[in-house]
């Protein structure tokens, strides 16, 4: 996973609450077998008109937001389906930072697995970011994970909270499977200890009927 330390980039605003993961990557694209290539698809139904013509009314298609890498959004961002295709799309499109007043649990968690920094600020702070983004063409924000701050060139400086362990993993780009496998002995011990007195935790593989055709 790509580590995240700090990032400065153009800001794009998505002024809607409860943006669900079905909107980020619609189901017809969840049949692909890869983790890459979802950037073109991100926000598909909003972004494209029939024939995959860019919808000029959708904010990410505004010329001024071309090349944006920081997304500011509203409450409960990423609700709904657990599909990791959503953060894959966010990342592949070019976003490294998503800032919102709140995130849905599964999406928030999935961001950390993909080197995306999800930042939670207050609704008032978000209003200010939306205002500044609207007002100034080319508005940029800097996210500094070490210092846990969001800042701009005009003196705006917001501190954000993040779990220290998540911060550590994201900054180092750690492979969490590798970390868990360091506890191999503990996992084996757990399995052995539970085995004798807990038959219900083991698959009791009685004969089940075979496929008909």
């Amino acid at each position, binding site marked *: 996973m790509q580590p995240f330390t700090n990032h400065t980039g153009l800001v794009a605003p998505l002024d809607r609450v409860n943006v669900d993961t079905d909107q980020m990557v*619609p189901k017809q694209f969840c049949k692909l077998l*890869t983790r890459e290539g979802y950037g073109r698809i991100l926000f598909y139904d909003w972004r494209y008109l029939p024939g995959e013509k860019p919808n000029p009314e959708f904010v990410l298609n505004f010329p001024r937001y071309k090349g944006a890498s920081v997304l500011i959004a509203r409450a409960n961002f990423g609700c709904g389906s657990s599909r990791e295709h959503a953060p894959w799309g966010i990342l592949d499109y070019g976003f490294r930072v998503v800032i919102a007043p709140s995130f849905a649990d*599964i999406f928030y968690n999935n961001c950390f697995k993909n080197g995306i920094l999800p930042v939670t600020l207050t609704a008032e702070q978000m209003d200010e970011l939306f205002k500044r983004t609207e007002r100034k063409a080319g508005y940029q924000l800097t996210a500094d994970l070490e210092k846990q701050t969001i800042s701009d060139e005009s003196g705006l400086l917001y501190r954000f909270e993040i779990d220290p362990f998540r911060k550590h993993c994201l900054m180092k780009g750690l492979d969490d499977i590798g970390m868990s496998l360091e506890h191999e002995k503990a996992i084996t011990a757990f399995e052995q200890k539970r085995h004798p007195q807990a038959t219900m935790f083991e698959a*009791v593989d009685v004969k089940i009927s075979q496929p008909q055709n």
Partner: protein
Amino acid sequence: MAALTLYEKIWQAHVVHEAKGQPSLIYIDRHLIHEGTSPQAFAGLKSTGRKVRRPDLTFAVMDHSVPTKNRDLPILDADANAQFEALTRNCRETGVRLFDMHSHNQGIVHVIGPELGITQPGQTIVCGDSHTSTHGALGALAFGIGTSEVEHVLATQCLVQFKSKTMLVRVNGKRPKGITAKDLILAIIGKIGIAGGTGHVFEYAGDAIRGLSMEGRMTVCNMSIEGGARAGMVAPDDTTFAYLEGRPFVPRGKDFQIAVDYWKSLPSDPGAAYDSVVELDAARLAPQVTWGTNPGMVTDVTGRVPDPSSFGNDVDRHAAELALKYMGLQPGTPVTEIPLDRVFIGSCTNSRLEDLRLAARVVDGKHVAKSLKQALVVPGSRKVKEAAEKEGLDKIFTAAGFEWRDAGCSMCIGMNDDVLPAGERCASTSNRNFEGRQGKGSRTHLVSPLMAAAAALEGHFVDVRKLNVNGSE
């Protein structure tokens, strides 16, 4: 000893490793996988040279993209076919049990887990699907995970988890006639909002929850995620034990008694503390219908489409405006005057035998409205289908003008051919009315199987309480 909740008991029993300031390493008892969110996880394992640690605790099924008719014909959807081939190959190479499209046990992953007894009380269960919360109905801790976590569980049979907060959702009283489990959960989501449970695990309790069948409890737990909670659970009781006894993967004889004794220790202790409590009175509920583009945008069947200006703040007002525009609805329209194009009875929320019985009772001897383009019944599993056919439900449905299909996720998500066309309006027993969920530009109204069946007959919503039928078996 401190009084513990059901959630805390299961959590404590599954901690493999914990250290201060870090999330815990939690053991996973059952890992369910499907063709939609697993191929990248297997590819990840392969690229790092890792193995599936416990293929015996991993169960695979094809459900999301499977066709619901003509399954014996070649599959023309190349992308879906690639998913099926990948899952078949991955399972064969790693020794994971697969219920493929032709298996006698195939069905929606959240229907077959409980049905086969794979799901049991006290377990930790995960699946790369947010409706994994369904399995909490049996007193398990079950939640949806992303594909990176699927890979993590395949490799380690564990997950790195932060402990959740707990919310007690107590539904008091007795359900009136015509009020189903679906109406309970829609009303709960309407009350707390779709982010109300973020960071929490729900425990459903109260007389109205106790009074539900296992299938009804599954409907309630299924939609926990629509209230923002990753998991929802119901403490196991005699209803749970009776449901489980004799199912293929459940221990038998003396082992079953040992299991039941353990399961009886799981319910929350008296005086156990929750981070928050929500209460509802079932006796006062009316049948629920969603009018907007998320499950929290819901009202009584006797209500009207709300006027966005009636919302107290700018955010909700703006969201309601966008929703009504997408849904093509005028403020003030009575819910019973919303005309429908199609009806879908199915999904992991409402496709079990009880759901089909309820719907069949309403349509028996009648016919769907002429104005309807399609009425679809998609059983949740092949076993449900078989049982329904044994009772003659298929004949009741087809005589009434419904199509009777094979098991799968179908029009809930539209990953196969069962897609709701743009601009069309559907009464659906599924769980999400998001924009484009059933098909690009499609308009979804979430309802109970009773409400969907009655709406099919009339071509618009009707108050099922007037039909004088019970909301459960």
